[in-house]
């Protein structure tokens, strides 16, 4: 049975199943954020102070990218994303939070790819795909990352899917050719 701690205002369920534990974590997070909220008339509109902080970090990252200080840029943008994860409350508009995350992650992907962090890039790409972004850019980057990670069979699958959705894409066709060559060598 549920246990409620009056001091922390959190509920607990000993021996909860995975799904139940997830629900309880959600409730506790909501409670915490509600308690921390100073404005009694809060709305789904994203808080301006949070937006300002996130924007500052992100623009810092963009500036460093222009200056070709890629490791620093990566750090700044990662910080911006972490800031958004920490500061945004569950009741701030989902559409805006999603767009914000997707936009920042897209930048991070390119920075990872430039610096050879292919596995990190792949995780960000799959996050985008899981949240419904299926543009050719995503397929191009995923194919590239997979080829660099020597996963030629997976790269072929992604590239072909990308071409199914955009059959005339030149970059994807070029990647398919490159991957086919690599696959031939892989298979002796």
């Amino acid at each position, binding site marked *: 049975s549920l246990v409620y701690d009056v001091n922390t205002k959190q509920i607990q369920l000993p021996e909860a199943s995975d*799904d139940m534990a997830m629900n309880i974590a959600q409730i506790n997070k909501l409670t915490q954020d509600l308690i921390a909220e100073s404005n009694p008339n809060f709305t789904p509109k994203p808080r301006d102070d949070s937006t300002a902080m996130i924007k500052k970090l992100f623009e810092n990252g963009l500036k460093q990218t222009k200056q070709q200080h890629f490791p620093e840029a990566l750090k700044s943008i990662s910080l911006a994303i972490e800031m958004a994860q920490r500061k945004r409350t569950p009741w701030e508009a989902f559409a805006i939070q999603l767009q914000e995350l997707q936009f920042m992650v897209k930048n991070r992907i390119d920075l990872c790819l430039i610096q050879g962090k292919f596995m990190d890039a792949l995780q960000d790409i799959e996050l985008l795909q899981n949240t419904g972004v299926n543009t050719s850019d995503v397929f191009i980057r995923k194919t590239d990352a997979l080829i660099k990670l020597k996963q030629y*069979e997976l790269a*072929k699958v992604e590239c*072909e*899917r990308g*071409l*199914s959705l955009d059959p005339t894409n030149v970059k994807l066709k070029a990647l398919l050719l490159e991957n086919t060559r690599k696959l031939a060598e*892989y298979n*002796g």
Partner: protein
Amino acid sequence: LSYDYDESSETWPFFLLTLLCVVLIPLTIAQLYALLKSENSEKATRQKSPLDELDERYTSAKMIDFQKKFSNKRSKLTSKRTIFVVVGWAIVALLVNKIGGNEAIKEAASSLFDPYELLGIATSATEKEVKSAYRKLSVKFHPDKLSKDLTEQQRLDMEEQYVLITKAYKALTDELTRENFLRYGHPDGPQATSHGIALPKFLVNSSGSPLVIISYIAMLGFILPFFVSRWWSRTQSFTKKGIHVKSASYFADRLFNFKPSQVVTVDMIIKWLSHAEEFKIFYPNLTPSVFESLLHDHLNRSSSSDLEDVKLRIVAKTHSLLFGLLDIATSFRNLEITNVTLDTFKSIVQATPSGPYSQILQLPNVNQKAFLEGAVDDIRTLGKLFTFDDKKIGKILGIDDEGKLKDTLTVASQIPHLKIVRAEFKVPGEPVVTPSSTPHIVLKVMVRSARHKFFTPNKIPDEMCSEPQDFDSLRDPFASTLEQPVIPETFAPYFPVKRTGSWCCIVVLQKDGKVIQTPMITNRLSFVNLSKDFDKRKVKDVDSEFDPKEWEVGTIKIPFSQPAPPQKGDYFFRVIVKNTDYFGADLDITMPMSVRD
């Protein structure tokens, strides 16, 4: 009001005999057919392979013991049905004997009127023969013609005989008499008939009747309901795919609650399998975590000491569980789980963990440590392995013994690889796929060895890939694929049961990346190409040395569960043809469906 009972056992033997024959004759025919069929059946069409003998040799003694213990426990000869048939016929023989020795029956039979017998002619005699027989006999038996020396009794007998002969003649010739004979079995018209109960008296009357009533109650109240309910619950306990409904509902629950952020791994599938109800029924005292660790032991080819038999038995059961899970995963349209389920299948059959080097590690005699540590080139595929000469391969795999190396190379070269030659959506009788038609997928594949030199699909001329266009083929396009032979037995010395693998064909809609139908399973393809000598290490010029006529093109046809879209356009599908038994034997292509008028 008063019935005659069968005191003299005249009728109940016939009643029992009829009942027995009605059951025994079809059952005997069915059993004989099954006995003969099981000898010939698939063995006749299954291809032989060099791996058959190797598989025998590499199967451990422990495994052979296990196979003897658990498979074919009851041969057809000693099955319950056969015993029933034999006992049944023995009872029939007894009854026939009883009938033959029964005086009352003989008497009743003798009083039957048989004109042919009386006249001493065959039943097929013509009218002329009847007349001449009568004339001869009437001369012999006519009262006026009888000899004077006969006694009174003899005279009476002869007269009686004469009357009978005359009646017999009339029965066959005279209209009225013949009608009587045909209708009542006697020329004089209806004879005395009796009606009675074809059961001995003691069964129906006071002394025996409690016994009869008790047996009726037992039959209708207990025995019949018992068998019916046992059959019904057995049928209800298992799904169409042959897995327990509890296992199926567990898998469905896992799939329903599956979060896309989870990465599907072979370990996850093994964890799911360990919760199968079938395992619980086999071994009620063991927990799912025990089953899970046994399955991992199997993958790592490590012994499970006193649980060895348990391990082998549950491994054998995974075959039907994995097919059941496959069916459920495709119903949920989940491609990731479908693919990993089939990878798990391979892992279990070959007792090799799924990883980047599985294609190599599935081979026999490979020294894993030497292979992984001593690697200069990163060899992950059999095709890459065969770019080296045999001696070098021995070094790479860490095999010193020449005999063992030869075995390993045989296995490696006999693992079937599929190469796509042609792929299209086909509507029978139409040149294109028209809107809302029912297409099916036709794949023309080349089964080739990893050893063979690569040749492009355009080297295979169109004539070798054409489909018959006669009426029967158009009516049933899938019949032609059944003419291909059944694939040979899999080389799987670690799997407890001798098996033939199969290819599972999965169709995915590229637009959403989801599976669109349950898989089509096939185990018919010719492996004759595998023994061809076209070694990539020896062939210098493909163009001159390759003769397509020497190669066999295989066909895989996949029915399409939905009609073609109603609008014209190009729709893309991904077709995955995954083998259940070998790593490296898969095919994964994208093909367009061009819907045109």
